[in-house]
């Protein structure tokens, strides 16, 4: 399979096939997590990104390993799109010593600092400030890096969204705010708890735009423009990607809801249709413009599935987390 090229300087070097492969890797990886979750293989809950892959992949296509991203509780997609290793991620989710965080963080906290992935985060809204701080560091270092903060429509009601936009705007930091607007926050339809529009909030601080988040090219181009502006010292931007969360808030959702509902099944079905789901949409484009034949797509799928199964095997075969580790690494050294 095509290895995602994570060291590009702009979007030109990421081919459409690469984009497709990366999105598919996320999709197949998470489909596999559904199974693992259901069969009790995983220590904790998982929040799946299925249906939103175009956002992470489109945005990360215009970044390098030296750029920073902060992610959310729904972070597998960002981790893989930014070049994180699936073996290390699965081992982490399985709670193993070989996990990217040695089993200390788990699904909600996958991080690979060497790739600029400052971590998925269990605190909704935590990434705003961390990305802003990293963006400040990037600006001080003067090497043209950017820091991208992925966050949800629910997170946008946290005050730190406004605070971080303010700091980023006032100090002209290379922060890119990428809102994954999937319309829900846990079991709440976000519009019921939101005044005005998010893009208007952002416009008070910086250039802000809304794109079709299930169109990977649209995301890539909007974030690409933002990244270019940021690298050139033009300050922060906001890009809102409209998308949909196909799965529940987390895999244990049904159990938690106790029969209650918060959105219509019809909506869920509609967003899974081929003209909505980002994967069939990109596949159709690849076929239509002659980039790929159906057989090539099938081959990619087979390769991706094999990669995912290899990661499962790796995770399963790995030794459990070291139970003595936590107290050793909780504190850093003093001097």
């Amino acid at each position: 399979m095509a290895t995602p090229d994570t060291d590009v300087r702009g979007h030109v070097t990421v081919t459409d096939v690469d984009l497709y492969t990366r999105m598919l890797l996320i999709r197949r990886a998470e489909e596999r997590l559904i199974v693992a979750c259901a069969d009790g293989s995983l220590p904790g809950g998982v929040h799946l990104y299925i249906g939103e892959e175009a956002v992470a992949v489109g945005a990360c296509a215009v970044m390098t390993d030296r750029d920073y991203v902060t992610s959310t509780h729904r972070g597998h997609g960002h981790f893989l799109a930014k070049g994180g290793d699936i073996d290390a991620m699965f081992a982490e989710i399985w709670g193993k010593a070989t996990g990217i965080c040695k089993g200390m963080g788990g699904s909600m906290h996958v991080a690979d600092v060497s790739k600029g992935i400052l971590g998925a985060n269990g605190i909704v809204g935590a990434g705003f400030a961390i990305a802003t701080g990293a963006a400040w560091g990037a600006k001080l270092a003067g090497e043209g890096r950017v820091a991208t903060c992925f966050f949800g429509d629910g997170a946008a009601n946290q005050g730190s969204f406004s605070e971080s936009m303010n700091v980023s705007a006032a100090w002209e930091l290379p922060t890119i705010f990428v809102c994954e607007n999937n319309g829900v926050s846990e079991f709440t339809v976000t519009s019921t708890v939101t005044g005005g529009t998010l893009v208007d909030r952002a416009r008070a601080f910086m250039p802000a735009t809304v794109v079709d988040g299930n169109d990977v090219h649209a995301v890539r181009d909007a974030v690409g423009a933002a990244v270019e502006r940021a690298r050139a010292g033009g300050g922060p931007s906001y890009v809102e990607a409209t998308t949909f969360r196909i799965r529940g808030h987390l895999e244990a959702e049904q159990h938690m809801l106790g029969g209650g509902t918060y959105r219509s099944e019809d909506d869920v079905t509609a967003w899974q249709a081929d003209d909505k789901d980002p994967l069939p949409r990109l596949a159709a484009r690849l076929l239509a413009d002659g980039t790929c034949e159906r057989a090539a797509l099938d081959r990619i799928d087979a390769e991706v599935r094999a990669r995912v199964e290899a990661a499962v095997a790796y995770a399963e075969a790995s030794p459990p987390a070291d139970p003595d580790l936590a107290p050793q690494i909780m504190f850093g050294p003093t001097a």
Partner: protein
Amino acid sequence: MARTRLITAVNEALVAEMERDPTLIVFGEDVELAIMGDTRGLVERFGRDRIRNSPICEQTLTGMAVGLASAGFRVVLHLMFNNFIYTGMDAIGNQMAKLRLMTGGQMELPITVIAGYGGGNGNAAQHSDTAYPALMNLGGIQVAVPTSSADAKGLFTTAVRGRTPTFFLEPAGRGGDMGEVPDGEHLVPFGKANVLRTGTDVTLVAIGTMVRPTLTAATALAGEGVSAEVIDPRTLVPFDEDTVLASVARTGRLVVVDEARDRCSAASQIAAVVADRGFATLRAPVRRVTVPDVALPYARNAEAVLIPGPERIAAAVRSVMERQLA
């Protein structure tokens, strides 16, 4: 008398209090569908004026509770997990805890904040803190840690009817244990510990989630000829010093079991009180069985070794018995 989970007992108490007092308002993130189960069914019964999903903004939610209470309402705010207490800490530490004093007693804040605490569920460090030590240190705030369904109902009712901000902390993610719940009105007073098991050799004070492993340890110890008294304080603020001191006066030994991190924990506070007021009756070192100064890891095996279990508790008890024999 019905057998229910702790979380269901809270739900029942909340329904009864909402029926009783039309000024009681419930809000928080996802309270309508009730991620924890404790607020389930309320919106259908009382409507969205009385119980309402909020946006995600803990800093403002805690401050709003203060404002809503100032406007004459009784407030129940659900903060979901103890870690989100940090997110909403400003108005907790600077307003809720202090405004009664700072206004010379003008402002009364009948606020009950619910939040789940503790580990054991593979939720990792940002969803498994036991944050009551920070709350206990603020002053002005009461803290309840129910361990049985009956106490959950009784303490919750007392909290809601009170006139002091109170944190009502539930074991996270498990809905608590099953237990009998008295029918009808049931109030459990604050500051009255519950002696769950009497004994003569050692006093075990076990907080919240730690009650169950402590009782298990006590049973095991009984088999070894060690008679352990087990006390559940039920509320940490106010705290029933007298019951604990009276017990230690008989047993001469104290072990405190707490799921909080050790430094400045409730366990340390209780140990300090007994080392002062109960010193004359102590015959052995006061031991604490706590989480060391570490956040809980995700991997179950790594998490499990950090949370006090029956074996660590029993070992601590044995260590103070040995000393005495030596």
